[in-house]
């Protein structure tokens, strides 16, 4: 950390990590930083909240969600919505232009459609096409599996993995899904209702480089100071009383 008391005063949880230091963020910090970064990279506020949710969820399950989100945002930066979203049809959810789909948009949309005919229901199989940073789908699919009592399977050309809301499966998720992109198909079958696993995993650390990269996206949401903004920010009276 900085020992210089003059280079500080960030009104929010912007940490002061550097070099190759591990960066142990709280879940709240991870969610807050990722929300702002996602907004800075062009997501709507409501979608950026979902990005914050997904990244913090992964942190609380021992996976460096912020670094995966960073990797995705760096690829998706500047792309139009149409190049990032799935085209929802009864048979396939591939992107129209066959671009890698944003895992946040896809995860959210799978949840939004969970109880609709086009959605992921038992004995349904949906080709998703290429999905960017696919591990970011896991928080959404786990919620979906718990809520609708589903056992969800993701499959790709050389592998599959099953999500049932059990803690043990997350390590496997990291190993299999912690990659730049995968050509995925999702399917589901009925499962026994289960409750979220109560065992707590230590929070994952992220890296100083990720924090710096996410901060530079986040700073796009801020307004440069002006004389007017400084003047109206605080008290007009002295604090030495």
């Amino acid at each position: 950390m900085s020992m210089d008391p003059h280079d500080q005063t960030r009104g929010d949880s912007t940490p002061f990590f550097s070099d190759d230091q591990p960066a142990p963020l709280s879940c709240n910090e991870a969610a807050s930083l990722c929300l702002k970064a996602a907004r800075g990279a062009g997501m709507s506020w409501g979608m950026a909240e979902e990005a914050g949710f997904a990244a913090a969820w992964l942190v609380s399950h021992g996976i460096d969600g912020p670094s995966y989100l960073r990797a995705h945002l760096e690829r998706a930066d500047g792309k139009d919505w149409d190049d990032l979203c799935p085209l929802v049809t009864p048979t396939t959810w591939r992107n129209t232009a066959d671009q890698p789909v944003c895992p946040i948009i896809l995860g959210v949309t799978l949840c939004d459609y969970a109880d609709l005919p086009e959605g992921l229901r038992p004995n349904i199989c949906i080709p998703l096409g290429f999905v960017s940073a696919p591990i970011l789908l896991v928080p959404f699919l786990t919620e979906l599996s718990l809520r609708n009592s589903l056992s969800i399977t993701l499959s790709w050309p050389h592998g599959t993995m099953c999500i049932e809301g059990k803690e043990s499966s997350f390590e496997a998720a990291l190993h299999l899904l912690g990659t730049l992109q995968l050509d995925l198909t999702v399917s589901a079958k009925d499962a026994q209702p289960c409750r979220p696993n109560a065992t707590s995993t230590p929070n994952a650390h992220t890296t100083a480089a990720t924090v710096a990269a996410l901060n530079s996206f986040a700073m796009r949401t801020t307004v440069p100071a002006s004389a007017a903004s400084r003047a109206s920010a605080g008290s007009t009276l002295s604090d030495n009383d």
Partner: protein
Amino acid sequence: MSVTTPNMAFEAAHFMRPASEVMRLARMGSGHPTRLSFLHILLRRLGSSEWQIDRPVWNVDANGVGHGVYRVKSAEQTYSLVAFAHDLPDEMRSDRVIATAWDATFTLFDGDPTPNDIARLADNVPYQEAGRISSKELTLARANRSVRLFRHVVEALSQGRQPDAKEMNAVGYLMRTTAVYGSGKFGASDRDDIAQRPELAAPFQVEMLTVWLIRAFTVDIVEHIAAANGGAHAVKLDRDTRRLLGVGNSTGLGMAPFIVRHPVLLNNWMMARETALARVRAQTSAIAASIAGLETALAAATLNAAAWHSEHPVQVRKLHDLRRDLDLIASQLATFDWTVSLPWNDLWEWGENTLTYEGQEALLALMLEPHGALIDDLAEHMGADEAASFRINGAMSVADLRRILETEYAWALAIDFTTPENIARFWYVSEEKLEPRLGERASEDGATLELPLCIARLAAELYRTVQNYDETKPVAALLLAHPEHRYAVRRVQIANNHPYAEVQDNLIAADMLPIDLLRCKLAYFGASQFDPRSDRWVRINLFAGAPFPDEIKAEGAV
């Protein structure tokens, strides 16, 4: 913790005030602390449970520099405030988030800190935002002296005198905190990880505990310095004088967005308070002890109103209203007929017809005060499981979404957002300090980076889209076509079953007063003597009149 809806007898439900009345800025900006305020919830628990409180470490030199540890301990948990006392030159003292050094800095440690923990904290806590704390810490805070009163009290005590009562009343605290961070800020423990503990289930309990222990520290440090200066002549503060001291707090716009960003939490705070009022009004008789309790509370409120100073024109007017209204309440009580069938409701309805918002909201606090047995359980319902209402119901039809907008957001749809005065302001985050600020749309840059805090306009924009959208389609399809409305759709679905979730006013209007948002939140904290220093910056006092750690056991539940 329980976040279920509080039990509501049918009779009491009849007496609930509607959101259209409660959730207006003018009324929220007249809020008073009640026995459901968070610091009162904390004091009740500390007074009634098996909590041992001591100060195991006091390592402070003759200049008042060093550290101390204050410990609160039960069979299950220990919480330790680690306090660092500094020697701060006057020119570095600022209450703003832009300050870089303080008279004292603090963290609430989860457990008993080891010397290694203290050493780690000493390397970080004094630097506040530029330091890091860990999941072993629950809060991070700092405080500055009230230079005038601190100096006066040191001088008086060191010379063997008690401080001047007039000086004490004029300020009311030795130090004021300028930030108390919790909930995972700067690496601290996440709220989700501690919210299951019964003593932390109500909102802001670690923050309130931090401030209450800081209050003890402010007295210890002033007595310590006086003793160092005065030697054998020095005396301690009289217990009655000490009791009057609270901890000041200085806060600005940064706090305002909180209640807008946490609609379920805001709903639960309001719901608890409104349910309490409804239960009191629904009583079919008044017992003597409750009437006596009301009169005692009125006497205390009258004293508080007399001591309450502000130079801000808005608050000066409100204080005038409050003092007059408290006199009116006193006159009414002198001849009040308590034998009618709904005496508390009669009193309330008289107040609604007679008093200003200041007086009405003060009357609410007074009426709750003698009814602990009837309403204190509602404190259990003031937390919120926000994750439970985060997920959007994509299967809802657009027609249903539209109906919710038309019923729950009629107040918002009625605002004309084409007139300059209704879009005069915009909320944004400053690049310089990452603090929320409020800009003037016509004259300042940055409106394209507006924060989504004007829920009324977002709801109106959503409504415009929905009017032109196939209403047989599901919300999921609407959001795939219009991702820009995801934020507003989530709010609207929350508001559908959380009636007090929204501040029902235009938060970017030219005449909007941010201090109204601040006062609402601070009243829930339990803050007294709300003193605006501008229309977006305010000072308050916390814990004035409350017991100190060495008194709370003897006094039992407050």
